[in-house]
């Protein structure tokens, strides 16, 4: 399902109304291309070539670890036939040509970058090549077909050669071609072969600049003291002690808490500790992990009472659950805002610069085109950096302070405020006929992700004048049609007659997209239950899976390959294996986990992972990202969770919110099978199968079925 503005409007039933339709049809006015270099050829927002022959690419996606900077450069290098290292990059600003077609926003998410950029960015580069060759043909009075571009030179068949820069002036006067020819795959020099990572150099010597490194003259640093309880607000506060702390410049209330401004982070944080705040309590969110669990059980019971029961002779039932998870990006949330009379500058590591821009513009009452969002590397994203909360805080505080302000969240702010991957509970039933599933039912109790996402990005999607009732209608409609939470339930296996549905309930804890979204829990539930069914049917877990996968399907191919590669069934004594498969964003992934018992628990020794990513642009970066997915998934499978007590998050920092460390990381073996001619998304592809593969291995080792994350014996 595409998360576009049109989807929301359609789902809310307001797309036909004059009010919102008029807004939807508004066209963005002509926006100048970003970072224009004088004299350069710039036929589109992506690329420029200067008379000196410099090739400058705008990186319109957020580089947050997934390697998209290198990927985009590789696409351009291929079409321009130059080494990737010779292309300069700049983080782009906001521009309509950079909109993600899957989301209607300039957003880097959902493993969509290479899926949506593979052709358009090559086309943008091919247009540059076409123009330069046309200009060369005109200059030399020869046919374009006789010309060739290689490593920054234009050559003809007769020994004539000249640097591409010589043709920039003339090329800039030619009409931009509407159709271009892309290089055929058989002639690729870089796509699928280039395995360097271009941003490594800046990331090993400290020179890579992240949002938190913004160095803005005269800027103050602010921390925000937030209510420890969800839904609470400031009732009163006493700042007299905080104001006297060293370095403090000001203390005042903002919508989300109390802002403490000082000459640096440490002074601001120390002063914040001296603040005395009385918070209100919102009774509607009086929750703990236990009350949430009980309510989810009650709601699933109610739903079960409505559902027609499975009455066959061979029925299997199971209940599973998964906890809240924060993203815990290594770079804590932060933003810097400087406000001038007619312009606003924003530095923020983010996944969606136009959400940042629109949100800051709206809160300051400016036009979006007055706000510049400066690009930077982002220290992780994982879905968290779509939200503009830190940027809004910095804008509000900077406006009141009359000076530039950098807001930095502490790690405690990050772990305690979320938003989180939701805690969910699931019930499954299956009716088996021998070794085949005849029908199955899936009931997931979950909040809507879209309903909680929309208020956070409202400024980007909807005009300020949109009445609250209309917005609420849109949110309700989006929630009703929200299928995001059910992703990963039916994408892979054919389990007879399928009845998959959700019971929506919002416990008042903020939730969000989290790397692999619904797959992160659904795949754990489904793949564990498949294992349960196989065991129940007295079948081999591999044969049972094969029986329920389409013959010849990519899922069955990766399953067969992982079984072979992991030498399934031939482990040394004391080592037990489990398997799982998932399909996400066009990629298909199968994993085998090798587990051994140790003490009261178990140790994951090795993960063998086979991915069919369609095709890959940079094979080694794809493997890096897959390893990253596995560690991410294993962290959630083994150690990490956030629990709620007394309306607040119990954990606060890396001492009690555990993530996997190097000594806990198993050996990983990654294998790619390229089955197509277009890249799928790999950024999330291997997250989900880890937990069920490990749980299934633990079952084989112990006979104990672990139905809740993190996995504990």
């Amino acid at each position, binding site marked *: 399902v595409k998360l576009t503005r049109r989807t929301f409007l359609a789902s809310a039933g307001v797309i036909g109304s004059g009010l919102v339709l008029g807004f939807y049809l508004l066209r963005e006015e002509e926006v100048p291309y970003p970072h224009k270099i004088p004299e350069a050829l710039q036929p589109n927002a992506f690329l420029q070539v200067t008379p000196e022959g410099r090739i400058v690419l705008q990186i319109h996606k957020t580089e947050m670890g997934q390697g998209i900077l290198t990927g985009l450069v590789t696409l351009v290098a291929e079409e321009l036939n130059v080494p990737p290292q010779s292309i300069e990059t700049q983080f782009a600003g906001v521009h309509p040509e950079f909109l993600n077609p899957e989301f209607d926003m300039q957003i880097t998410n959902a493993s969509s970058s290479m899926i949506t950029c593979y052709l358009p960015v090559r086309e943008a580069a091919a247009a540059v090549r076409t123009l330069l060759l046309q200009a060369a043909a005109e200059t030399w009075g020869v046919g374009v077909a006789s010309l060739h571009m290689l490593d920054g030179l234009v050559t003809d068949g007769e020994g004539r050669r000249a640097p591409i820069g010589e043709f920039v002036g003339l090329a800039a006067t030619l009409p931009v071609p509407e159709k271009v020819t892309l290089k055929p795959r058989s002639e690729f020099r870089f796509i699928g072969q280039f395995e360097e990572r271009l941003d490594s150099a800046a990331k090993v010597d400290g020179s890579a600049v992240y949002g938190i490194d913004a*160095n803005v003259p005269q800027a103050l640093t602010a921390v925000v003291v937030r209510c420890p309880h969800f839904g609470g607000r400031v009732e009163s506060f006493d700042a007299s002690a905080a104001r006297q702390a060293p370095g403090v410049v000001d203390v005042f209330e903002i919508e989300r808490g109390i802002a403490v401004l000082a000459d640096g982070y440490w002074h601001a*944080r120390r002063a914040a500790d001296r603040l005395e705040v009385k918070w209100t309590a919102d009774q509607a969110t009086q929750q703990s992990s236990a009350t949430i669990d009980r309510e989810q059980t009650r709601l699933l019971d109610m739903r079960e009472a409505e559902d027609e029961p499975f009455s066959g002779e061979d029925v299997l039932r199971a209940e599973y659950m998964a906890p809240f998870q924060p993203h815990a990006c290594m770079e804590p949330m932060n933003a810097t805002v400087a406000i001038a009379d007619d312009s606003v500058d924003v530095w923020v590591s983010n996944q969606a610069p136009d959400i940042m821009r629109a949100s800051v513009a709206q809160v300051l009452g400016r036009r979006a085109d007055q706000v510049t969002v400066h690009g930077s590397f982002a220290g992780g994203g994982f879905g968290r950096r779509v939200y503009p909360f830190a940027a809004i805080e910095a804008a509000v505080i900077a406006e009141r302070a009359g000076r530039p302000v950098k807001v930095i969240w*502490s790690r405690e702010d990050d772990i305690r405020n979320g938003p989180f991957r939701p805690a969910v509970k699931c019930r499954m039933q299956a009716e088996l006929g021998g070794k085949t599933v005849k029908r199955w039912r899936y009931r997931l109790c979950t909040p809507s992700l879209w309903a909680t996402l929309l208020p956070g990005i409202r400024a980007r999607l909807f005009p300020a004048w949109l009445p609250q009732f209309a917005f609420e209608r849109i949110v309700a409609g989006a929630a009703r049609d929200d299928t995001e939470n059910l992703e990963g339930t039916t994408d892979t296996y054919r389990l007879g007659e399928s009845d998959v549905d959700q019971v929506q309930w919002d416990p008042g804890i903020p939730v969000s997209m989290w790397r692999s979204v619904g797959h992160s829990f659904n795949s754990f539930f489904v793949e564990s239950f498949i294992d349960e069914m196989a065991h129940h049917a007295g079948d081999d877990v591999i044969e049972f899976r094969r029986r329920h996968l389409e013959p010849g399907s990519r899922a069955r191919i990766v399953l067969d390959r992982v079984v072979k590669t992991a030498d399934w069934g031939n482990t040394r004594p004391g080592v037990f294996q489990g398997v799982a498969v998932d399909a996400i964003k066009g990629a298909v992934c199968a994993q085998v986990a090798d587990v051994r018992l140790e003490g009261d628990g178990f140790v994951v020794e090795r993960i063998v992972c086979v991915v069919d990513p369609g095709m890959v642009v940079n094979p080694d970066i794809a493997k890096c990202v897959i390893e990253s997915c596995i560690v991410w998934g294993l962290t959630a499978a083994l150690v990490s969770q956030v629990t709620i007590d007394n309306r607040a998050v119990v954990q606060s920092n890396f001492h009690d919110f555990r993530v996997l460390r*190097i000594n806990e990381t198993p050996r990983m073996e990654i294998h790619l099978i390229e089955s197509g001619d277009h890249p799928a998304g790999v950024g999330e592809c291997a997250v989900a199968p880890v937990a069920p593969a490990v749980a299934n291995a633990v079952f084989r080792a112990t006979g104990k079925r672990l139905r809740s994350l993190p996995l504990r014996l």
Partner: protein
Amino acid sequence: MLELIVNGEVHRFDGDPDMPLLWALREDLKLTGTKFGCGIGACGACTVQVDGVAVRSCVLPVGRLVGKSVTTIEALSKRGDHALQRAWGEANVPQCGYCQSGQLMSAAALLAVNPNPTDEDIDSAMAGNICRCGTYQRIRQAIHMAAAQMALAMPEEVGP
């Protein structure tokens, strides 16, 4: 007023001696390669070396550094070509990269005392450095690569 020796240069610091070194580096000296991650010494993003030993700068008061020499990622090598930095590039270690300054400073301190570490040595020296991108396997590999490179470059200094 105290004197801080950072990357071989003497800096006058007239702030609060209780301030953690991390913020003096980032905000006063504008050495932003050293990163803030947790503020409690639990993630390693802020790792620097003090007299060659890896320490968490987010919990180390500036006042404790009198007469000591601080090295940050900016001075791990002059041209970004320390064997570890080269190995990091060759093994495609960095992803988001935010934790990598700290990882490298911990790894460099390890190799300085243990030029040929085993996987277990690496795990125990690097367990204080979190990477949310999960680059651990390649960190291990890159430390082995760098150790091999350094052994080739300085054969006479290789231990038994």
